[in-house]
């Protein structure tokens, strides 16, 4: 595949991105609007361009697919699966286990409208499920939110790297807009960092004591320590791995906070209003967990107003409010059900916010 000027759908880009990031095994279950991911990886299986790509299998259910990923990751492989919201709900069980077992792998959720079957349109309503530990118990996923097809192509590199660096599942949270959007992308040369898995992977206890990958600990004190240790690790992730984009925030009076496709639209709004001399900026969280609390806190301390725009009823809004505190204005524009906010809707919301503030 050419590395430059490739015209791809977001879903295709994330599949090729995973191959470029050294994918070993993919376990599939089809669900709209994410199915181009397994389709692309089925097509590319056996392509000599990706010698590390050793195994593709379509599972019989979402549960089977994610538990196969869990088994493959236990063997030290770079394993992955993708799904969309109803399927992502089913993945939560295994994600909880994997976080407790400290297993590294990559999962992609191409979020569609919910609740229930909802529809196939874009939503960002899996934010809570993604960032708060959607399954049972105390844990987090490392969550990346691409806002372009180019980022879909590159984020598997970051996702796999962080997953192995911290031994925790990583998630790319897209939406059906980003998944279906077709854009020109490039794949810069990349050599994935290799992590030594020999201290934990279940490869057979030859000349070493057995490795046990387990989330069970019946001794309460030991389990308290185990989960505590995982959260010490999360502190490191929060200290070192926050990614965000600040666009014209320095002199802005109002800062839009949005991720994914909502941020893409918001950027257009910032450009439009800047031409009219209105000082608006955009803070785009790229990692949804760890959440960019510090830059938001700093902007709040400078007295800026905030408008949170999401394709849901207000989920990241809560994290923005926590980060910015009670002393600043945080307004919200939400669209859901597959409906996407337009630039003009955002602009009129901003004007009203400006009037309120005056």
């Amino acid at each position: 595949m050419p590395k430059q000027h490739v015209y791809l759908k977001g879903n295709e880009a994330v599949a090729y991105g995973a191959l470029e990031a050294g994918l070993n095994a993919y376990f599939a279950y089809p669900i709209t609007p994410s199915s181009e991911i397994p389709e692309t990886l089925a097509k590319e299986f056996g392509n000599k361009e990706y010698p590390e790509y050793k195994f593709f299998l379509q599972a019989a259910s979402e549960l089977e697919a994610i538990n196969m990923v869990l088994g493959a990751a236990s063997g030290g492989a770079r394993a992955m699966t993708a799904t969309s919201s109803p399927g992502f709900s089913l993945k939560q069980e295994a994600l909880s286990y994997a976080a407790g077992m400290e297993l590294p792998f990559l999962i992609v959720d191409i979020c569609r409208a919910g609740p229930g079957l909802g529809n196939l349109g874009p939503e960002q309503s899996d934010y809570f499920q993604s960032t708060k530990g959607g399954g049972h118990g105390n844990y987090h996923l490392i969550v990346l939110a691409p806002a372009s097809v180019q980022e879909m192509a590159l984020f598997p590199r970051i996702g796999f790297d962080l997953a192995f660096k911290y031994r925790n599942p990583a998630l790319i949270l897209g939406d059906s807009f980003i998944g279906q959007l077709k854009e020109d992308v490039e794949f810069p040369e990349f050599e994935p960092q290799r992590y030594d898995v020999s201290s934990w992977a279940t490869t057979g206890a030859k000349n070493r004591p057995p490795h046990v990958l387990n989330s069970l600990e019946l001794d309460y004190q030991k389990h308290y320590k185990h989960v505590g240790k995982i959260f010490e690790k999360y502190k490191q992730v929060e200290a070192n791995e926050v990614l965000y984009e600040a666009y014209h925030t320095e002199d802005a009076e109002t800062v839009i906070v949005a991720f994914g496709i909502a941020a893409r639209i918001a950027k257009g709004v910032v450009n439009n209003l800047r031409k009219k001399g209105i000082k608006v900026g955009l803070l785009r969280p790229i990692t949804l967990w760890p959440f960019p609390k510090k830059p938001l806190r700093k902007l709040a301390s400078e007295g800026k107003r905030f408008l949170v725009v999401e394709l849901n009823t207000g989920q990241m809004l809560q994290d923005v409010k926590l980060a910015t505190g009670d002393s600043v204005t945080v307004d919200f524009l939400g669209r859901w059900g597959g409906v996407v906010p337009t630039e003009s809707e955002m602009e009129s919301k901003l004007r009203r916010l400006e009037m309120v503030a005056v």
Partner: protein
Amino acid sequence: MSQTTLKVKVGKLLSLTDNPTHYCAGCEHGTLTRLIASAMDELGIREKTVMIDSVGCSVLAYNYFNCDHIVAAHGRAPAVATGLKRVRPDLMVFTVQGDGDAASIGLLELIYAAQRGTPITVFLVNNSIYGMTGGQMAPTTLAGQVTTTTPYGRDPVLTGTELDASKMLSGIEGAAYVKRASLVVTELESQRGKLYTIKNILDAKKSVENAFKVQALGGFTFVEFLSTCSINWKMSILESKRYVQEHTMKKFPLGLYRDTFGVEKK
């Protein structure tokens, strides 16, 4: 049966740790643990074997088997085993599941691992009940059998009849070795009074070895072991053994259901 055919190794096994098991008195889980470890030693596969511990009474198996372990979620062991085996085909991968784990919540995972001919081994301990959770109805609970969720006996009109996993898998082409064995001693009447034979247990031992051998040949292997759960059946140990003989075996007859490679003949 003469002494010379008794092949179960006595003494310390490399494939076992020194930890005492948590299994209840009279439970056959301990017997199966010994049989599997013995087969692992004899076949020399301990260093390349990974056990997938399933949810149920076998969940603490990582304390007993001296090999690598992955502890799976309830019912998901065959899927986890599939993922590992496919990226590490040189490994021997097996799981010990209960009837609730394999035949109820994890039936899909079991059937599809078999349907694909996944070269793994599933040992199913069928004791007709959810043991670890305290004795609730399992898919294998016999009609009329009393459990904590069928306090007046299992009613087949409402809950259906006993689910036969071996028979179900017997129709699946991908399954290379499917067998139902028993871990329960059998009581015999004789002129000298009651005698007890472990013939079935020795056959169970052979089934464990055959399952590993067929996995090494690339086949999906499944052995169901009839067992007791005297604590949850609210019987004495001996009564529970008799119950298997008199009732369980009638519904779940022992036998070889599939043997694609013909290992039983060899």
